[in-house]
């Protein structure tokens, strides 16, 4: 079929299907199930109105159930089987994960990422938001800081791989070292333990822009009079910032922090594209990737661990975001 025709048919079927669903579902409810006539008309209208919201929710619930709830349960079920997918081994995948030194290292690295990246991104974002607010060229500065957001994680990783390159002619770090008189180039991505922080820095570089934009909007939402009242009360700029401004945007700070935390728990591309998880930089998602397609049982077990770690952060994030919206 001609792609144009195909698209048109899809639109008509999709939109028509939606309209048709709501039209006929409501018709059945109002005419057949609880008709607004006869001796119980009033009661019927009330009953129909109590059911109606569920008619509207039904498609979304079905879609979410199919694409979110089923995969979660399915993954968990799959994680109870061995690599062949036929032999039930109970929690065997989980116990062998705990026994694996590389898994424990990934877990530790992931914890480091969770501690450092959201904190640093939020801190730098807040700093940038506050500092650029009063500058005449603040908007240009903001655009520059925000720009990394538009780069894919893999692209950013490649850029930073050049910065970190083990060659003073390519790598900025080694060029600086050479300028200061070092005659041996180093590969910063191979320095044990600290290389984790060089990788984290890439994500901080990307996420600072996000934090800045959200926090900048929040800072602008602070009533100017409260700041003026603090000036009259004798507060200095630091006191105004930490005692008046930051407490007023605490809700937004928490939302930014938790949003970045969730993102950090999903990050995989940066490690994969730079060190491939070598030199002690493995994190859970890249560890999972190492087993994917080779031992799906084990990979799904890792996925499940990640989900369990993300869940409480996500719940807190949603609770805070809802509070903010009120």
């Amino acid at each position: 079929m001609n792609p144009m025709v195909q698209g048109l048919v899809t639109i008509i079927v999709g939109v028509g299907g939606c309209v048709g669903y709501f039209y006929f579902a409501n018709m059945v409810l109002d005419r057949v199930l609880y008709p607004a006539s006869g001796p119980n008309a009033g009661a019927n209208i009330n009953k129909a109105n109590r059911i109606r919201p569920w008619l509207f929710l039904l498609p979304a619930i079905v879609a979410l159930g199919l694409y979110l709830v089923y995969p979660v349960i399915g993954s968990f079920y799959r994680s109870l089987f061995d690599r062949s997918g036929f032999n039930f081994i109970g929690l065997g995948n989980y116990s062998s994960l705990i026994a694996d030194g590389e898994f424990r290292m990934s877990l530790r690295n992931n914890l480091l990422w969770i501690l450092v990246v959201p904190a640093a991104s939020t801190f730098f974002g807040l700093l940038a938001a506050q500092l650029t607010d009063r500058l005449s060229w603040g908007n240009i500065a903001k655009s520059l800081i925000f720009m990394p957001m538009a780069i894919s994680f893999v692209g950013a990783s490649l850029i930073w791989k050049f910065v970190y390159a083990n060659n003073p002619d390519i790598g900025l770090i080694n060029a600086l070292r050479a300028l200061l008189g070092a005659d041996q180039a180093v590969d910063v991505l191979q320095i044990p333990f600290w290389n984790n922080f060089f990788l984290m820095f890439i994500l901080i570089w990307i996420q600072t822009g996000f934090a800045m934009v959200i926090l900048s909007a929040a800072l602008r939402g602070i009533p100017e009079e409260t700041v003026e009242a603090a000036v009259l009360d004798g507060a200095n700029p630091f006191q105004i910032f930490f005692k008046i401004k930051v407490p007023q945007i605490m809700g937004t700070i928490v939302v930014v922090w938790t949003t970045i935390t969730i993102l950090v728990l999903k990050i995989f591309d940066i490690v994969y594209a730079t060190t491939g998880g070598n030199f002690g930089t493995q994190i859970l998602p890249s560890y999972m990737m190492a087993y994917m397609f080779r031992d799906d049982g084990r990979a799904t077990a890792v996925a499940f661990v990640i989900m369990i770690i993300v869940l409480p952060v996500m719940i807190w994030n949603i609770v805070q975001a809802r509070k903010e919206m009120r």
Partner: protein
Amino acid sequence: MATVKLTDVGKSYGPVEVLRDINLDVDQGELVVFVGPSGCGKSTLLRMIAGLERITAGTLEIGGQVVNDVPPSQRGIAMVFQSYALYPHMTVRDNMAFGMKIAKKPKDEINRAVENAARMLQLTPFLDRLPKALSGGQRQRVAIGRAIVRDPKVFLFDEPLSNLDAALRVATRIEIAQLKERLADSTMIYVTHDQVEAMTLASRIVVLHGGIIEQVGPPLDLYERPANTFVARFIGSPAMNLFEGKVERVGNATAVRLPGGGIVEVPLPSNGAQPGEKVSLGVRPEDLTVRPDGETIYQGQVSIVEGLGEHTLLYMDRTNDDDAVIAKMPGVQRIERGATVNLNAPPDKLHLFDERGLSYLYR
């Protein structure tokens, strides 16, 4: 000691001059009200006294000391904002104590000051609440309490009642008047666009318009002896009626010929005015009376009657411009729409303004 003295004060934003030649002496214990229409510069002037806006010309003295370049917190002032400006994350107690905490005052001194202010404003039961758990009136009382705790030489109020509903506004206005009585020594400067607030609270009113002071004086002086047509129409509600006319005879009294042909003798000296000069005859709506005959200031057809019980407003369409002539009669009046009435006023209630709008009183 807590006097406020403004000498040739001006404010410009680049080439735009928003205030100029402001000269004003506020004595200790006075409550001076800045009043004027939106954009007249009254809030800017208050913010300049507070130190939130830079003074671009002239000098400001508080307590005999030039404070043009003194930071706001050291000017000995406290300000109450229109939007309350409470710190939303702090309890009422912390809101009031913040200034003293910043100044690192001893704890017991802070507690004493906060509790005194809370008692004065009946806020004691609310000390541990957050501002969001208070009503508008309570919030504004907290803002006033925060000002009291600072024990300032000068209180500044920036339209403190504008965000309150009508009933609460009256109640809070009375509270501010009582507060002024209790703090008799403190100087207060109060900004409002509501002339009722100005008339009821002020010991003196400063009428601002277009960035300059139009007139300064006690409320009733401004009502009885306005210096120009702007003050005349701004103070009093409904606004003063102005009738265009020409000087007919000069002398110790000035006779004015009105467009209707009638001649009115105004007991004000002409002070050099020439016959034939254009003048405006001003009569307040409440000074107009309906007469079946006799000398007439204005004859017109009643187009709207507003009976409010305690008084009745008559609107008469003028023939020569869009401004309606308004008469305010006491009590209930049996005047029908469409009736033709003659309006008159006692001679001592007449105001006379020259072509530039300046009163003959001050010539």
